[in-house]
């Protein structure tokens, strides 16, 4: 108590009127008028404590400070005689955070308000741990995939193009990365990152924090020679290690492609890796590696989504057919017969020679949001017959199997028939104003196909999703006049796709006013009712 001084604020300097300041000399004390701190005691609730009393003796000349150390007694009968509890009367100094107690301290002090009692006094803090153990974990989107030792690594370039092994693969995040790894041919057998074993050694945990393991199997191995030629190996179970052969280092991993199969409960059930192995020669100091990872739900065929759920601009519009005999064979997937292999709506692709009849039948997928127009020139000679020409032009414009339905959302599943929009077909003729009887004798050939896709914004104002509402395919025909022999005509054939936004303006949605639900009891008006 004698050493405590609350008015000693300036270090190594005398504070004015501070009688307990040790930095003051007797000459300073003589200049004081009063003592700002007359008494310094311990906790006054104790029955007896030491007290330091400072006072100025103004009688003496010069005035001097008087310091007395006495025992102060608390007269109350409820004064504390003794305590057996260390932290009773003093502020406890907080724990220094170390790596062991950091989590507990963060839980206690990490929020906006501290809890009134520290968790160490609560026995309940142990129970959340045991209840978590009974909870089933599952992978969620973006959660890093855990393996036996750490996370599944997908090396990727960080800052520069050099490979960094610290990039974990996220669940359901399809990624493809390319990066450069530095190697030296002499030690090529020792560098882990170019050996197959590095990528399949640790098994993946089926769910986070579980002991169920999924081994990574080797799905295929492709050998790439120095000049870039790739050959698929037949035997997949042999693990090939990098080794030095002649002056080359062979079996270097140039690319890994992981395919993970998951269930809709968030559990990984299968993992396969396809490798591309190559060779480098002595002078090579670095090798470029490419990695990718893709996720497939179990029992589904991987259909590339064009948006989730709304269409993303630039992704292909998905389309398909309704199988015969609907609704009975519901199990048959709609995308069994597709416009093209991937179930996309396609239009004619313009070629460089612009001759319709020589077109190879190349078609380009319709990308959502991109209005496209393509076409070719048709050379009509006198010798052409109407009917085969019409059929050939229809095939050209619409393709081999023009779909009947278009998916309204980017992630519409084939099983949900209501999510698919039927394509409406219209026919117009260029010469509608002509006299009727010229129609019958002449030949109508289709010259243009215009697909109009009407879409709307769907969902919340903050994150609107694009949804296709209506698709109309309009075929315009024109009369083919019979030509004199030897002459030819060229007519343009066009096909186009237009996307129109028909969204209605956003409406605010308010919650209903709360209603007061007060009813009198049944027999409130007893004698009268």
């Amino acid at each position: 108590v004698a050493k405590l001084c609350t008015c000693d604020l300036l270090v190594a300097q005398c504070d004015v009127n501070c009688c307990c300041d040790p930095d003051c000399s007797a000459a300073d004390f003589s200049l004081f008028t009063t003592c700002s701190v007359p008494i310094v005691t311990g906790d006054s609730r104790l029955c007896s404590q030491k007290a330091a009393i400072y006072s100025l003796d103004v009688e003496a000349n010069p005035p001097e400070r008087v310091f007395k150390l006495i025992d102060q007694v608390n007269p109350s009968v409820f004064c504390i005689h003794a305590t057996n509890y260390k932290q009773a009367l003093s502020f406890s100094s907080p724990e220094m955070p170390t790596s062991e107690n950091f989590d507990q301290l963060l839980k206690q002090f990490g929020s906006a308000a501290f809890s009134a009692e520290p968790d160490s006094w609560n026995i309940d803090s142990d129970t959340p741990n045991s209840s978590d153990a009974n909870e089933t974990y599952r992978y969620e989107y973006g959660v890093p995939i855990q393996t036996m030792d750490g996370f599944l690594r997908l090396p990727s370039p960080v800052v520069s193009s050099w490979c960094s092994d610290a990039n974990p693969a996220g669940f359901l995040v399809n990624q493809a990365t390319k990066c450069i790894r530095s190697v030296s041919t002499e030690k090529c057998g020792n560098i882990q990152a170019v050996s197959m074993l590095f990528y399949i050694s640790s098994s993946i945990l089926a769910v986070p924090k579980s002991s169920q393991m999924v081994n990574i199997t080797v799905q295929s191995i492709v050998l790439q020679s120095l000049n870039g030629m790739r050959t698929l190996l037949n035997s997949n179970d042999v693990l090939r290690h990098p080794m030095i052969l002649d002056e080359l280092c062979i079996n270097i991993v140039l690319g890994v492609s992981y395919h993970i199969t998951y269930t809709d409960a968030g559990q990984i059930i299968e993992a396969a890796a396809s490798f591309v192995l190559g060779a480098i020669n002595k002078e090579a100091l670095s090798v470029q590696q490419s990695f990718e990872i893709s996720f497939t739900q179990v029992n589904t065929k991987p259909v590339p989504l064009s948006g989730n759920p709304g269409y993303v601009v630039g992704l292909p519009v998905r389309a398909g057919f309704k199988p015969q005999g609907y609704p009975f064979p519901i199990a048959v997937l709609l995308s069994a017969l597709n416009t093209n292999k991937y179930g996309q709506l396609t239009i004619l692709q313009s070629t460089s020679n612009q001759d319709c009849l020589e077109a190879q039948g190349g078609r380009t997928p319709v990308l959502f949001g991109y209005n496209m127009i393509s076409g070719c020139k048709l050379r009509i000679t006198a010798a052409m017959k109407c009917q085969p020409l019409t059929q050939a032009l229809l095939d050209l414009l619409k393709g081999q199997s023009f779909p009947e339905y278009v998916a309204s959302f980017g992630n519409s599943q084939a099983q949900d028939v209501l999510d698919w929009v039927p394509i409406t077909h219209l026919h117009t003729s260029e010469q509608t104003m002509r006299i009727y009887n010229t129609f019958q004798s002449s030949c109508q050939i289709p010259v243009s196909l215009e697909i109009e896709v009407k879409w709307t914004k769907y969902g919340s104002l903050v994150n609107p999703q694009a949804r296709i509402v209506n698709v109309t395919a309009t075929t315009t025909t024109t009369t083919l006049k019979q030509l004199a022999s030897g002459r030819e005509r060229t007519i343009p054939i066009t096909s186009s796709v237009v996307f129109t936004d028909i969204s209605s303006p956003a409406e605010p949605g308010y919650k209903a006013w709360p209603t007061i639900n007060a009813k009198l009891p049944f027999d409130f008006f007893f004698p009268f009712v």
Partner: protein
Amino acid sequence: LSSVPLQILFYINGFYYIFYFLATLAMIVYKSQVFSYPDDFLTPDLALLFIMAVLEVLRLYLGSKGNLTEEEAPLGLSLVITVGSVILSVYFLIWQTYVLKADVIINAVLLFTYGLESVLQVLAIATFVG
């Protein structure tokens, strides 16, 4: 042959103990409000107080019965229980979480009473046996 001072002492002890119990309980409540009295420390103190009350009732009943019926067995049992009560009283005197001056005073009186009673009980047993 019954010891009259012992009986008087038992009678006074009964009343005093009721006062002691209520006072200690009230002071524990006061301490828990005024000082920081965490649950870890409050629970043992309260538990021991209630145990002490039970022991006291038993002790006084057995002692007074033994004294009045001039049997040494209940009196002996009461003496044994007195030892337990003394230990608990010492706990409240020294090892409690907060020992106030009032605690010291009432526990000292209680201990003095126990001491006096023990002496008289021993004398009474000696009288009954002999």
